[in-house]
């Protein structure tokens, strides 16, 4: 069924994007921050950069990726529904 497929795909997008969200915010910025701090990137220790800069950029990108994916999915749902009606 088209609607079931739509929801299943949405859940799959959510699982992938939220895993990245958790890996960057809880992983890079908190759990592994000391390990990453041994790497220097320009004037930043890498873990510190993730905690105060990088994570926020990743968050913004994640939302817009989701917007893009869902807009595409919405369009395909509409066109499939129209095909069903024809």
């Amino acid at each position: 069924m088209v609607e079931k497929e739509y929801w299943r795909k949405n859940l799959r997008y959510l699982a992938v994007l939220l895993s990245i969200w958790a890996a960057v915010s809880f992983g890079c910025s908190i759990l592994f921050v000391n390990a990453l701090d041994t790497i220097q990137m320009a004037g930043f220790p890498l873990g510190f950069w993730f905690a105060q800069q990088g994570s926020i950029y990743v968050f913004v990108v994640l939302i817009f990726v989701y917007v893009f994916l869902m807009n595409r999915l919405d369009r395909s749902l509409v066109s499939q529904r129209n095909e069903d009606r024809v």
Partner: protein
Amino acid sequence: MTAQAWIFLLVGLTFALYIGIAVWSRVGSTGDFYIAGGRVPPLLNGMATAADWMSAASFISMAGLISFMGRDGSVYLLGWTGGYVLLALLLAPYLRKFGKYTVPDFVGDRYYSQTARFVAVLCAIFVCFTYVAGQMRGVGIVFSRFLEIDVSSGVFIGMGIVFVYAVLGGMKGITYTQVAQYCVLIFAYLVPAIFISLMMTGHVFPQFGFGSALTDGSGTFLLERLDGLSRELGFDAYTSGRKSTIDVLFITAALMVGTAGLPHVIVRFYTVPRVAAARSSAGWALVFIALLYTTAPAVAAFARTNLLTTVTNMPYSEAPDWFKNWESTGLLVFEDKNGDGAIQYTGPDSAVENELIIDRDIMVLANPEIANLPNWVIGLVAAGGLAAALSTAAGLLLVISTSVAHDLLKKGLMPHITDRQELLTARIAAAIAVCVAGYFGIDPPGFVAQVVAFAFGLAAASFFPAIILGIFTQRMNKYGAISGMVTGIVFTAGYIVFFKFISPDLNTAEHWLFGVSPEGIGTIGMMINFAVALAVSYTTPAPPIHIQRLVEGIRLPGKTP
């Protein structure tokens, strides 16, 4: 022109602008009043959401907090931005599709229960009031420092302004004023940051500047210098943390989930035209928020470096004007303990006794003066601080008035009132809420400041699981949702009250549950809420068939077939 003249000019101009917008956007229906008719373009809604979200705390206090906490300050940066990912992915589109006015609307309808609606209304009003009191206080502080009138008169002026555009314009007035306020506050935040970044590192973008080398010819990186200075003076290195990893993890999670569960943020996504617009609007909101939130840690590092290099061993007689100005407000205190006439500012690991106490809140406000920026920048910062406080206060007042007029009266006690009467009630409720908030601002009960930080934990432990489960499980019924919300909020509030009010002397890491401080306990409260709700709902009857249909409808965009 003197700094004082610039402040009057810029604050006056921005206030005139806000009132002008309010008069232009008067409203006539409850739909306009509650959700601006559902016709706000996503980009503008993103801007309004950003202004709504970024309060006096973000504008005035956050960089100061980070400045003193170093890496531990990241909990605020991560928590208050990461929540928008949850909002955009898990909440905003579905609540927009559901398409009523408030969060209690969703809870009440989805869980087919007046009790659930009532619990949600109480949570919403409680969260908003604790929050709004802090905003009015912020308005008072900015007025008293910059316009040199007392805090009470400052709060009265702030109340008057908010009253005009919230009561007249409702959500429509608030939305368009917030767009203007966003522009004012972000400009006011970025200008001094860019100036200082150019002076210290030669970079236009503070985000890159604080990871670059200093322009003093030494070639050392700014953060290296700051770590070195901090250690010399007996503080921890700036880029290292002091809090335990588990505590940082739980506090961050509580702030993230709390952000996604705050009613005044969620309601903004009802104001856009379509489901797709709700998603992109959350994205724009985060872009506008990120502009300030990625600048704040840079401001924090600049301010800290400036402060340490300026005041260390400076003879008190040569102290600059800003030092004396802030001393007179009592937010900066110097006591010459060793009697050498010079200022020793040192940390806990230093052999020399510390002689200087600096309130965290003055870091952003004093920054332009410390860096010797032109007078108009100081006026701009004052106008920006007021814009941040007023926009958040207005958004919160609207949620309170909607909760009373719509959720409590129309959907509860007096279902037969007409649209006109409901609108009138909403306006009266807004007016009363302004007065109560003003009272809290002038005469804050001691607990307000402490409670504001916990509003997040409470929102995380109550609303968030109920809404998520309502969307993502069809099986969730009213018994599960209500018992989950009640256990979540009782547990969280109980833990906070115990450690903050009953036995504050026990408030140390060894007594905390799993080493989680009261600031982070909302995360555990949320987990308990989820567990209880799921357990109860699977042992009680499934929700009626029309509710299961409703859930199916919420999940799909456009008209449900």
